[in-house]
């Protein structure tokens, strides 16, 4: 729903310009999720365990840790966070790298989204 306030001196609404109102289900903003110590070449996906849907924005919620120097790296992903208490802030991170050599066991962890940045330390165990 969009509320339009006409006239001079319209006030911002919930930080939104031009009187655009935020729905309770809308994110409050973006935060940086750092997948610390993630193995390069691993595929990752960030989902909501409540319904197995992708975190938002969905385009950022899955991808591959890029190649580069070294075996591991700290990979940053920008995602939405929601009002405190929202189940959308509960996120499950899955990293998989079982097709290459060496193969790694599947790694899962969970974080709670919040403003600023959240670090998820990834301990991917080699399987060989």
């Amino acid at each position: 729903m969009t509320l339009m306030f006409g006239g001079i001196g319209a006030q911002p609404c919930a930080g939104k310009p031009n009187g655009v109102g935020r729905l309770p289900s809308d994110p409050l903003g973006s935060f940086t999720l750092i997948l610390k110590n993630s193995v390069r070449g691993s595929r990752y996906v960030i989902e909501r365990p409540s319904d197995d849907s992708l975190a938002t924005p969905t385009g950022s919620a899955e991808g591959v840790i890029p190649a580069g120097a070294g075996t591991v790296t700290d990979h940053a992903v920008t995602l939405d966070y929601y009002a405190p208490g929202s189940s959308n802030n509960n996120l499950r991170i899955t990293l998989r790298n079982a097709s290459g050599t060496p193969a790694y066991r599947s790694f899962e962890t969970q974080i709670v989204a919040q403003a600023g940045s959240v670090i998820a330390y990834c301990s991917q165990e080699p399987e060989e």
Partner: protein
Amino acid sequence: MPTVNSADFQIATNGNLRRAASPATTDIYNVLDLHAWLQDLADNSVASGDDNLSIRKRNPSELAGKRNATRPSALTLLNGVNIDDTVAQFLKFGSVEQDSGNVLYTGLKSIGSPLVAASPIYIVQGTSKVTRWWGAASGHIQILLKCKTGGALISSGDVTGYSRKHGQTFAHFDANLAAGGEQVLALSTQLDGAITMAAGNFAGGANTITLTSPAGVVTLTFADTTQSLGGVSKLYKGTISWTNSMRLSEVYQALQWGASEDSTATFNSVPGWRYRALDQARGIGSSYVEVPAAPFGTFSGGKLFAAQGWWIDVGSLNAADLKAYQLISHDGTVVTPPSSAVVSIGNLVAGDRVLVGKDDGIDDFDKATGITASGSAAATTVTLSGAPASDVPTGAGYISINENPHTYTGISGVTVSGLSPAVPGGGYSGAAVWFPLIDTTADAATESSGNFVMGSGASFVARVRVRNSAIPIVPYETTFDVTEAGGGGSNNTIRDVE
């Protein structure tokens, strides 16, 4: 990298991992290969084709320990992923657990040398043969076998692997699959030179094996019997007997066939193909020593070494086999037959009256047995006042009662049966008895006594008397020694025409 051909299997959205409708190969994969393939699929961003796995699905499998292609892999299927018995037939070298541990397929591998090429191996789980999918001429096997379902072990996880092909020595080995991984069956077979008859020569029945050539029937009786052999009285738990005086070499072949994979015989209701020992067949749990190579006993050097608990019916023995066997009584005592003998008189003509018996040392027969017989008129059975001496034939033989000659078909204890002619009118009551070795009118050139047992080192002097009123000859009478050496003595009548 996994080597599983993706076209061989398919994974439904509910986790059912099954053989594809049209598999590309019939390859058998290591359990590790299956895990690597599942993990590779689970790395995909989205599912594709008929393999419904991706990073968006939960982890499908977990390995106990590191990936190591040199050792069996213990794999756990997770999050609803499961295989069925058909898929398990295409896996080896490890175990697969699923359904939160309620279902377990364990690896089973046979080893052992020597093993005759293409030796068939079959597995018994509980009391049933596992339907074989690995080929009847497989040689050594490496398979996965379900040992747990619905949270309960099948037969406590116990299985037995057998290789029992007629013409080869046999083998069997017990294993328990409950621990998962890969368990071992130690099996070894060789060609059995003592087997000369084809399997088609035998037919099985309940406690019997029938031979076509030579014609005969081997019968196994599952009952206690106390028997004396060589002066050693022991308890046995079963008796092997047979017809037609077959040789022990032939009886052995029949018994081996009876315990072979293709046997149709049952032994005390136990199928021959899983018969192992007499105590197990009778359910008496006496821990008999098994003879995997030949469950009823081995045959070597012309001698049958019977398995524990079996008594060999002496009356069934061919004269040439009287000493060609060894027994093990119920209590584990090795018992060997004493010397046995058969006395034969030759150069006879039909009508000769032949009488052979122990010599009394004063030119007559030793008739002083101290035994009497009683029996009703027309009866074919008489009761003795005491057991006869051990050197009286217990199979067919001759008995003189009140100087009346009779033949009999058997003596058991103090009972003489199969009397011919039957007890005459008036019956016998305390009638004097002695046991000629031969007491007959010849109808052939040679007449022989029944098999009788000689005590070790024993010998005696026998007297023979031959007369013929129709073809007058000087009555032939002489004595000869009967010893344990060589199985008895023989004598040829000297015919001097009167």
